[in-house]
């Protein structure tokens, strides 16, 4: 083997930490554009991580997964989302959540620590792989991003982060089922194209209608 097992393990650990840091960076953004770029970077990091996991385990499926993750989630989907941002210039900044961002970053850090403690006590005895704590924490951070943002594209970034976390967990727990995960990736692309159309329509109609219209969606 070209690389020693301990070196690969350290690189995987380092990439895992970078993924968590990218999630916290996502949490700290009020502008939509860097949020999308951060989730793209996170997907590319994940692609790199899958390459390392392939070198460690020799499971070729992980290599396919790395290529698909980097190409679709790291490049194609962010390109579609950035196109939407450029098309509707007025939605460049998160509204409402802006002032709460510093508090949300602190909540995010607390969630990282709390999530790790929860994983260690509840899941580690069963899963017996401490690395799974990283995607576990990432899922919690993605939920935080989805529920605290109002902008549709920021919420979409939260969803992509959540899917990144599950891809990550899947690769660590059951590396031999990436065919299923590859299908999920393809569905993601379809979903994003669809959401792009819905977003366009939302913005078109939004220009002519007032906020009270949405009061019909309550109760």
């Amino acid at each position: 083997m070209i690389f020693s097992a301990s070196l690969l393990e350290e690189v995987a650990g380092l990439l895992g930490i970078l993924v968590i840091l990218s999630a916290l960076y996502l949490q700290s953004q009020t502008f939509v554009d860097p949020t999308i770029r951060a989730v793209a970077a996170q997907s590319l990091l994940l692609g790199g991580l899958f390459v390392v996991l392939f070198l460690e385990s020799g499971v070729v499926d992980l290599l396919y997964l790395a290529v698909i993750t980097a190409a679709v989630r790291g490049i194609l989907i962010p390109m579609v989302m950035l196109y939407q941002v450029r098309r509707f210039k007025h939605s460049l900044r998160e509204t409402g959540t802006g002032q709460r961002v510093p508090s949300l970053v602190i909540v995010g850090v607390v969630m990282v620590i709390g999530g790790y403690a929860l994983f260690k006590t509840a899941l580690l005895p069963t899963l017996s792989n401490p690395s799974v704590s990283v995607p576990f924490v990432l899922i919690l951070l993605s939920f935080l991003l989805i529920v605290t943002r109002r902008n549709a594209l920021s919420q979409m970034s939260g969803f992509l982060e959540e899917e990144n976390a599950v891809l990550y967990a899947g690769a660590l727990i059951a590396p031999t089922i990436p065919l299923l995960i590859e299908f999920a990736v393809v569905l993601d692309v379809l979903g994003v194209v669809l959401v792009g159309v819905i977003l366009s329509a939302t913005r078109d109609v939004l220009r002519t209608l007032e906020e009270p219209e949405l009061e019909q969606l309550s109760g």
Partner: protein
Amino acid sequence: MDESILFVVLLAAPAAGAAISLVPRDGVEILASLLSSAAAVLVSLLLFTSNASGTFGFFYSDGLTRIMAITISSVFFTSVAYSWFYVRRINEPLIRFRWYYSLLDLFAFTMLLAVTVNDLGFVWIAIEATTVTSALLVALERERTSVEAAWRYTLIVSAGLVASLLSVIFVYFSQGTLLISVLTGGQIQAGLLVPLAVGFALVGYGTKAGIAPMHAWLPDAHSEAPSPVSAMFSGILLPTSIYALVRTFNLLQGLASFEVMQNLLIGFGIFTALLAAVIMGYQRNYKRMLAYSSMENMGIILVGFALGGVGAIGAAIQIVAHAFAKSSAFYGAGNILVAYESKSMAEVQGVVSRLKYSGYLFTLSCLAVTGAPPFGVFVGEFMIIAQAMSTGNLTLTLLLAGVYTYGFIGLNRQSVRMIFGASPSSMDTPEEESGKSGKIPERENWVSVAIPLANLLVALLIGVYMIPLLLQAAQGIVP
């Protein structure tokens, strides 16, 4: 006959319909969708009568599969037929009508795939695909509320379904396979991962099935979607998600953790039904009220499957009966919406004096979905409460009785007031001046009456005639 051919044709029909619908010639889309959905009904009937059980190549079939397949294809067919009346009235649709019919066909295809495929991983993929194929259908009317509802639906359901992907990963990690035939027939490896998988499935598939507290998308999407799409959401999409949850839950049979997870499912089910029954009675929007009624039914069905035995058979019967009755109610609501151009119950009063047949059909459909005898939902609900009583769980029995009663009164009080109440304009203005919102009887389109009437009759037939047939099909639902 080789039954695996039947499964292929069952899926090929809506897929072909989706492709042909895109041919840019007027009328092709409705004809292709009608023929493909009729073919799906025919094939699912053949499957139902053949009692095909076991593995058929890529597919798996048991009583639940056959019941789900016939329910999905039937509501698909009636929704396509009702679309002919309903969607052409939409002035500025978000997508062209040929795309609407194509997506409707693909939506049915993904649901049929979810209930026939022999792999929990593909079940997840198919259910995730239902979101992709149906989100644009919700936003068809291109109003801000409908687009917002479609967005909420896409985001909440997709985010929730990721949890069920974790469930699939846990099943594979603990059992080494995702094949339903192997998991159902073989020895399940005990451990914490199986109940954990069921827990994640409850969150993921539960979000799609409208199980509280993950139900936030459901009332919005059901009320804002065009009526034929609302009927498919309520009648067949929610039960398809319940199907996926039940397939995962059944892995626990015979394991030590079964009882804990059974109680968890019963808890979520009864909480959903109670919450919906209470909220339903206070709705001001009649389509939203029907959406909460669907939530109530899904809660009860979940309790039935969790209880097992007669309760699970009752839940399967309720799925079929509810699908026909609720689609009839949504078609009736569609007729009212077309005539009154309002979803507000305050603005829609005295319907029967203007839309005689639709008014009566809506009232009867509401009675049917709330478990009035002799409709099929009554039989399903009766079997579920009987199972609760037989297990000696008095609290659950009383809670179910409370849900049935409160839900029945809440929905029917509102619907009767809306259909038979005094029209606001008839109280304020002379009859000859009452115009569009008044009580001048309208000549109703025969298609708009015949389709909900046919579905309501099936819901009635299920209660009075088809129970032995369904009982036979539902045997062996619980392994």
